[in-house]
């Protein structure tokens, strides 16, 4: 194993370890973070269901353990309260964003989340594809996975409009936020269009992509979105290399190539460093959705600076308070392996504290240095970060999830419904 491979193996295994640590084996729910009292995030469950197969293949988890953990989650969601009441688990096949780790009831008055349900369903379908043996457990697993996916009423989520709404609350109905511009919503739309039971009505995908902005920024042409995770999340499951929807056909590009360009834009921004933040350069970057310091935090010394806490940091318009996600370059590994790895090594060298317990913290801020000489580091670990790191490293190494999902008929139907063609499709 070469040095790079060794490094990636170490990071991937550590990231996967989060899910073993944060799962409630009784119901398969996985905590959003390792912080005390963290509820379950349904999106993190989606990542968990997607990385169990990786762990089986890597020999980090016995297949039967992965099967049982997956089944626990699927059975829980199947049997959960779908009444849509304020303390239920879901409604119309969707689920509230945050759930109690033990009862599975809605917490924090969170919204019934369309995108987080999509991330959950991506994991459900990954499990459905992977656990293909003809055992009683794996057969049941596939059957429940299919049932859960077919139960999601994507059409309802349009709220009689053209595009998918962002969420719904029992107290106030649909949120008024819509999906505007390119985002990780591409996965949501593909899954929603591939449904054999409740597909989207009308030209929903077209109505969404009409809000795209193709920009030349820092001399680089790309489909604009500020935070880096937007250019990564859909790629964790869907192999978007060489396939094009009508928008990308017109631009003579594809979403994979676009993510490479987004990475280049990030590096250009970091090189320019308009905010004058410590540490930024072409090998130290990664503005994305992540935790961050806030002025309320007791460990923040400089109270005059504007700090944004957990926020979707992006380029070039911010928000930017000097906080970077160390894991973000790794999550771009498949798009530009050499650049990503060079940045990863450099950032490790400069700020080893960004990886407490060998696992990436959500973020670090090189400009906020404590008395021990170390920079501010987000406490604990976040499941979303560990999930995307595990999956993107594995996709880079073996194309594992991409290959699995290329054979998922629902994803293929969704891609075709959105107008994708070419390449492996």
């Amino acid at each position: 194993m070469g040095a790079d491979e060794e490094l990636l193996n170490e990071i991937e295994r550590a990231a996967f370890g989060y899910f073993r640590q944060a799962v409630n084996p009784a119901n398969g729910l996985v905590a959003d973070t390792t912080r005390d009292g963290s509820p379950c995030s349904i999106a993190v469950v989606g990542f968990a269901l997607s990385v169990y197969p990786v762990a089986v293949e890597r020999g980090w988890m016995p297949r039967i353990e992965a099967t049982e953990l997956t089944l626990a989650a699927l059975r829980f969601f199947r049997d959960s309260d779908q009444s849509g009441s304020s303390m239920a688990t879901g409604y119309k096949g969707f689920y509230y964003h945050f759930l109690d780790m033990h009862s599975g009831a809605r917490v924090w008055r969170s919204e019934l989340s369309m995108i987080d349900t999509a991330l959950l369903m991506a994991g459900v379908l990954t499990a459905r594809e992977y656990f293909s043996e003809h055992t009683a457990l794996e057969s049941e697993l596939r059957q429940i996975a299919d049932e859960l996916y077919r139960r999601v009423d994507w059409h309802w989520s349009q709220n009689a409009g053209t595009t998918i709404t962002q969420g719904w609350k029992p107290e106030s109905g649909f949120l008024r936020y819509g999906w505007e511009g390119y985002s990780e919503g591409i996965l949501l739309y593909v899954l929603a269009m591939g449904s054999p039971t409740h597909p989207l009505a009308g030209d929903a995908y077209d109505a969404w992509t009409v809000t795209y902005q193709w920009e030349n920024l820092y001399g680089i042409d790309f489909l604009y979105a500020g935070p880096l995770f937007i250019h990564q999340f859909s790629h964790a499951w869907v192999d978007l290399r060489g396939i094009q929807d009508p928008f990308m056909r017109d631009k003579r590009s594809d979403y994979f190539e676009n993510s490479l360009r987004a990475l280049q834009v990030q590096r250009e921004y970091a090189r320019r460093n308009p905010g004058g933040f410590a540490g930024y350069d072409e090998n130290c970057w990664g503005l994305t959705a992540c935790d961050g310091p806030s002025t309320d935090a007791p460990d923040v010394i400089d109270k005059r600076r504007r700090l944004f806490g957990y926020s979707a940091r992006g380029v070039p318009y911010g928000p930017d308070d000097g906080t970077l996600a160390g894991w973000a370059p790794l999550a771009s590994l498949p798009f530009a392996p050499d650049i990503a790895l060079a940045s990863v090594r450099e950032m490790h060298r400069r700020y080893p504290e960004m990886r407490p317990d060998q696992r990436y913290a959500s973020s670090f801020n090189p400009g906020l240095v404590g008395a021990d000489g170390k920079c501010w580091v987000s406490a604990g670990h976040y499941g979303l970060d560990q999930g995307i790191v595990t999956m993107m490293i594995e996709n880079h190494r073996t194309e594992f999830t991409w290959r699995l999902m290329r054979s998922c008929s629902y994803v293929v139907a969704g891609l075709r419904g959105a107008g994708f063609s070419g390449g492996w499709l």
Partner: protein
Amino acid sequence: MLQRSDNFETDATDVDERERMHNVRPSDWRNPQPAQRYDLVVVGAGTAGLVAARTAAALDAKVALIERALLGGTCLNIGCVPSKALIRTSRLYAEMRDARQYGASFPNDIRVDFPALMQRVRGIRARISRADSAHALVAAGVDVFFGEAHFIDDDALTVDGATLRFKKAMIATGARPDMPAIPGLAAAGYLTNENAFDITQLPRRLLVIGGGPLGCEMAQAFCRFGVKTTIVQHWPLFLPREERDAAQLLSDAFARDGIEIRLDTNVEQVRVDGAEKIVDIVRDDYRNTITVDAILTGTGRVPNVDGLNLEAAGVAYDRDRGVHVDDFLRTGNPRIYAAGDVCLEHKFNDTAEASARIVVQNALFRHRRRLSALTIPWCTYTDPEIAHVGLYVRQARERRISVKTFTIPMHDVDRAIADDEEMGFVKIHVKERTDQILGSTIVARHAGEMISEITLAMVAGIGLRRLAGVIHPYPTQADAIRKAADACDRTFLSAKS
């Protein structure tokens, strides 16, 4: 001492106010004897009315101009002029507070002298009012009438007991602030642009309802005067018509200023407790109460169509859209046209002026100028300013036009860096694989000045690449436009190589 004169409240002891009133509503005014028949009767002496009357009179037309309130209308008296004067002073206070950022020493005691700044506002208003005073209009050959106009036929109207007959007429009665239907608001009292410039002392706490241009401008200005300001916006972003990035940058600017931002939020009701106003707001299912000393509403404007007896003239209208006009700005009555806020979707001073010129040409010279042929830029005068012209990307894509945007962040512009005014961008949208400019949004300290270059290019049919060859003085913030043009040019050159 506030005195009411013909229903217009003004401070009779203030020399500037006395001058302004002398110009825009002379107390000793006597309406002239009407001519037998006018070539053009203009109803309303705001921007559109003044431009039409002056232009027509200069072309030797017999013109009457009728105003029920003050010459100059909203723009001069309660709109653009006083608000921009106020905003300028608010910028100064913001810069004084940010002095360290410019390497200057920080003044120890910055206290807002509100009476002084309002005196400045009044002085500017008075000065600008001279250009379009009643006496100046008369000297220009315009018959000026003060009073309420009522149409009595398809070619006649009355004002102050006199009947005016016309070959052509133009309705330019403008618009007024829309009052949001919020229980308790009227009883609690609130400010609009109509009375905000009359206040004599700053409130300690202010709630601004509405995140459109007026609400945003006023919220930022008052916050910079040290007023604890909260802005409540129904939509998830400010300026919902503008590009998301522009609206997001404005939110960031507001946060830096210290404005408390409540987006996606509605005001449910207002109650009064002594001198305080208690405001209940709701976002999704979260309810909060805000206590303030004053409320300012900026939720839009509605056209002034009441009391004109438009039915008698056969002019169709409704209370939302105002007077109905075709693309030539003609109403259902071929003798009568309309211009400005009373009939236009874009309720801007410049557009009112442009529409008035169209009316003069179409009504008096039988031209066929079209409203739709206008290229209309606009600007919200926050800091940074947000200016736009032409199509938004979404509009272009909805029309199946493939779009490419050349974006220059202001942090890539040397002068913006030198000025410490890096927040913002220039975005120029072109038709893909061409350099035809479709539209542009600029967010910058002086975006309102910069957008004119793009507007000129669009009107003249100049492609973006040609702007790369236009020398822009260095260093200027407008150099961002040349940089965008350079980027466009490089795209073409690299495609050829």
